[in-house]
């Protein structure tokens, strides 16, 4: 039964990791974080449900459309909740994004409705035999997708020109602009991509769980803890931290019962940060004088 807990843990962990990668991306580009990330996950799930089930569009149309709309959501957040404050050196984007997330949650409550709904997916019922246990195909897909995205992020950042552009934007935005880099556009794209990650997470988890207007809140919170735990500036670190967090949750539940899960998990997070304040895989930001 260890296997079942591992699979659950990896799946959960990948959810947290996908959301946390969004935090990571906007942070490395602009040193800002989108606290409406949890809401972005909910938006992805709700849009997916509405397009696919309520309006009956084909999955091949609904999914790209959902991701597109989620990207737009990210652009809106960056333009109206982050840029006005960040460009003036103010930290008010922290509160603005929190408020934006709450606003969107309540909008969803009014439009999508007050009840949780079920997103049917044949992928859930497809079973795969693994070490003598039947596992839903979707549960295997989630960590695989998460790993693929984290790897892609890492490769882009390390080996491509785009990666260098991202670095330049955060190290010295003014110099970057002088070099012909449109910093504002790069930051906006980073936000759009981060909300797309959250939407993917929402779409993946919806068939396993349910779709409701409040699903993003707890996830967003835990994902932020994961991002800090992994060292927010390292994609691989964040992904690894997400998996570890998810596995810890599942294993603690398995061995001690669910009453202790939150207590132990967060106590471990505090302990880890006390030992390594920059996150498990992060590094001290170098300040050149």
């Amino acid at each position: 039964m260890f296997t079942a807990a591992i699979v659950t843990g990896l799946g959960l962990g990948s959810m947290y990791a996908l959301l946390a990668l969004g935090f990571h991306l906007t942070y490395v580009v602009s040193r800002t974080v989108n606290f409406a990330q949890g809401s972005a996950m909910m938006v992805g799930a709700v849009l997916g449900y509405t397009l696919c089930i309520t309006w009956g569009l084909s999955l091949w149309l609904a999914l790209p459309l959902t991701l597109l709309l989620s990207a737009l959501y990210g652009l809106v957040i960056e333009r109206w909740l982050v840029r006005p404050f960040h460009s003036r050196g103010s930290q008010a984007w922290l509160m603005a994004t929190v408020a934006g997330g709450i606003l969107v949650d309540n909008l969803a409550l009014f439009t999508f409705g007050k009840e949780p709904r079920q997103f049917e997916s044949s992928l859930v019922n497809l079973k795969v035999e693994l070490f003598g246990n039947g596992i839903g195909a979707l549960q295997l897909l989630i960590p695989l997708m998460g790993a693929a995205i984290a790897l892609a992020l890492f490769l882009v950042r390390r080996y491509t020109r785009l990666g260098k552009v991202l670095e330049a934007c955060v190290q010295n935005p003014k110099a970057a602009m002088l070099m012909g880099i449109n910093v504002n556009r790069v930051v906006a794209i980073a936000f759009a991509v981060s909300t797309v990650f959250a939407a993917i997470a929402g779409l993946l988890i919806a068939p396993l769980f349910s779709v409701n207007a409040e699903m993003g809140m707890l996830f967003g919170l835990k994902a932020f803890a994961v991002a800090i735990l992994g060292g927010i500036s390292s994609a691989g670190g964040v992904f690894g931290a997400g998996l570890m967090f998810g596995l810890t949750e599942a294993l603690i539940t398995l061995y001690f019962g669910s009453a202790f899960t939150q207590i132990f998990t967060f106590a471990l997070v505090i302990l880890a940060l006390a030992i390594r304040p920059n996150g498990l895989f992060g590094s001290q930001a170098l300040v050149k004088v």
Partner: protein
Amino acid sequence: MSFRLPTLQRLLSSTAAAFSLTLAMSTGAQAAEPPIKVGLVAALSGQSAKSGEALTRGLTMAIDEVNAHGGVLGRPLELVRRDDESNPSKGMLAARELIQREKVTVLFGGLDTPVSLAIVPLANQLKVPFMGIWAAGTRITENGAADNYVFRVSAVDELVDEALVKYGADQGMKKPGMILINNPWGESNEAGFKRALEKRGLENAGVERIQDSDLDVVPQLTRLKNAGADTLLMVGNVGPSAQVVKSLDRMGWDVPVVSHWGPAGGRFGELAGPSASRVHFIQTYVFTEHNNAKGDALLASLKTAYPQIKTLADVTPAVGIANAYDALHLSALAIEKAGSTDGRAVRDGFYGITDYDGLIKDYKQPFTAQKHDALGPDDYVFTHFVGDQIVPLKP
């Protein structure tokens, strides 16, 4: 130059004036008797929204009937509702507002046990009858207060647990595992289950907790399975109960699930998928193809008042409608007996009810100083979901 309206406009405006005067006079005459307000505090949003809606409908149908027969003490009844969002603090605020600002004579409600438990001390302190119509926590009515203002027309956890264990034992259960929601309702039932099992000399395979936010309860179920559970006793709202069913599917564990009425509170058939029908849960009332006369009459009125009700699946959960309907009629009788809207008098009025032929049963002396619960184990029925409809199980 003096201002004179053209002749046609003068005619029209004087007609309008006369018309509105007549209207004002007639409504003025009707409004001579101020309504008696009754309040509802329940979860009108979230996973139990359907249940809150059912309570509203039950109360509304009963109020319409009472008002059609001249109201209570010659005054019409009026319902004022507040959403507690399943949150005890919000429930308390809402209850306080309804009692002190709206001056309700009877407060109905409490969908969630934690919310009801929070409202109980307030009702007893402010001396306003609080009529529970859903939440089953034993300590809601059996709250130890010397001057108890809390009544209930609904299931009682202590008695439900006894009935669930009996049902399981009749099906051959020897070592059940408990999977309970992590809140006061779950705790209330844990105590009840343990007492019922002790009575029969049965041991349990463990107690696991589930949360509303749990994505996957495979770890908890795995622990129960490893401990040798042969039946699951489940207590939880729609969301977590659906997660249990989905997790059982993933595990491929074909264990019987005997549950409190949590699944009835929402779209269980949709959330839990095709295996939803494996959960056997308890109800106080079910609308079927063959109801008693009152049931058929109520069903017909519901369909008229709410045209979106087309099939029996749309009157789910029937429990909410039935409990609320009978509770309101009993409350109307209590107010009549009291002869006033004074809290203490109405409370004593409840004790004065000797006979009322209701929807769920024929009530004989439903309330006494020692017994504030109108329903007992004989009134429970076991059901399960078939698609979106709650259907009684063959005994």
